[in-house]
């Protein structure tokens, strides 16, 4: 599970007061995870734009971060909404359904992209956040705006689907 981020709360408060260096520190710390998530979500071409939009919203509304959730949870939730807004528009880079190549291993990327491409959008997001990025079910539920029970069943279903497909290909 990602480390605690009390420091992020401090940086966010400073960013809310207009401290650009604090904002830059937040971007530097969280861009890798956020962009990795978005690339895996199939937004390979738009991932940087979505991440940028999410960070700009953080800059504009940093004062609204209340520190109850982790900063990364709040950020990912913002990015998820940006992603959903974009996915509702007819944009080819999000229509394909398959994930983008987010990792360093081309062979693993090809396999996992194929698996993710056969999942629904929410299933894919839930699986990436919980299985790949190490978020708890509760945090992932908050990020995706889902009830905890729904999130758990979504992850279980997505994982079962992937396991079945993976087993077929390895038999």
């Amino acid at each position, binding site marked *: 599970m990602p480390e605690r981020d009390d420091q992020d709360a401090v940086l966010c408060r400073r960013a809310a007061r207009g401290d*650009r260096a604090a904002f830059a520190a937040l971007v530097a710390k969280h861009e890798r995870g956020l962009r990795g998530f978005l690339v895996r979500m199939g937004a390979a071409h738009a991932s940087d734009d979505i991440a940028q939009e999410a960070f700009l919203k953080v800059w504009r509304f940093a004062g609204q971060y209340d520190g109850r959730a982790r900063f990364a949870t709040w950020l990912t939730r913002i990015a998820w909404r940006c992603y959903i807004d974009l996915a509702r528009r007819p944009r080819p880079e999000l229509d394909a359904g398959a994930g983008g190549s987010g990792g360093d291993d081309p062979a693993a990327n090809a396999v996992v992209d194929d698996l993710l491409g056969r999942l629904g959008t929410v299933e894919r997001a839930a699986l990436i956040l919980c299985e790949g990025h190490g978020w708890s079910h509760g945090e992932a539920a908050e990020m995706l705006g889902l009830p905890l029970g729904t999130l758990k069943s979504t992850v279980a279903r997505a994982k079962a689907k992937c396991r079945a497909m993976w087993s077929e290909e390895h038999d």
Partner: protein
Amino acid sequence: MTERDQGFDEFLHYALAPPEREEDHAFVARVQAVARMEDRWAAERSAAWRRFTFGMVAIAAFAIGLAIIMAAPSATDAMTGDRPTVLAALIAGFGAWVALLARDSRSATSAGLGRARVPRR
């Protein structure tokens, strides 16, 4: 859990993990540049709205004063008759309007604002 299930779990965790790399300074710089531009645009929008509001008030004052003068029986009545306050308001409104116009042209010249483009990676 079977060995195969364990292998699958390990694969999934490995394949879905965020890529291991150093922070992307170019992306950080890009986001910062866009944030700076947003701040500039917001300030520019705010200033434009303020100018517009003051301009409208000045024009309204001018128009009302003009309408009252036009409604007077004669221009001489308006200048010397029983409406000295109207005349004063008219002059003040006109003065404010001229002052605002002058300030607008000065600030537009000095700011030289234009939408700069942020280089993309």
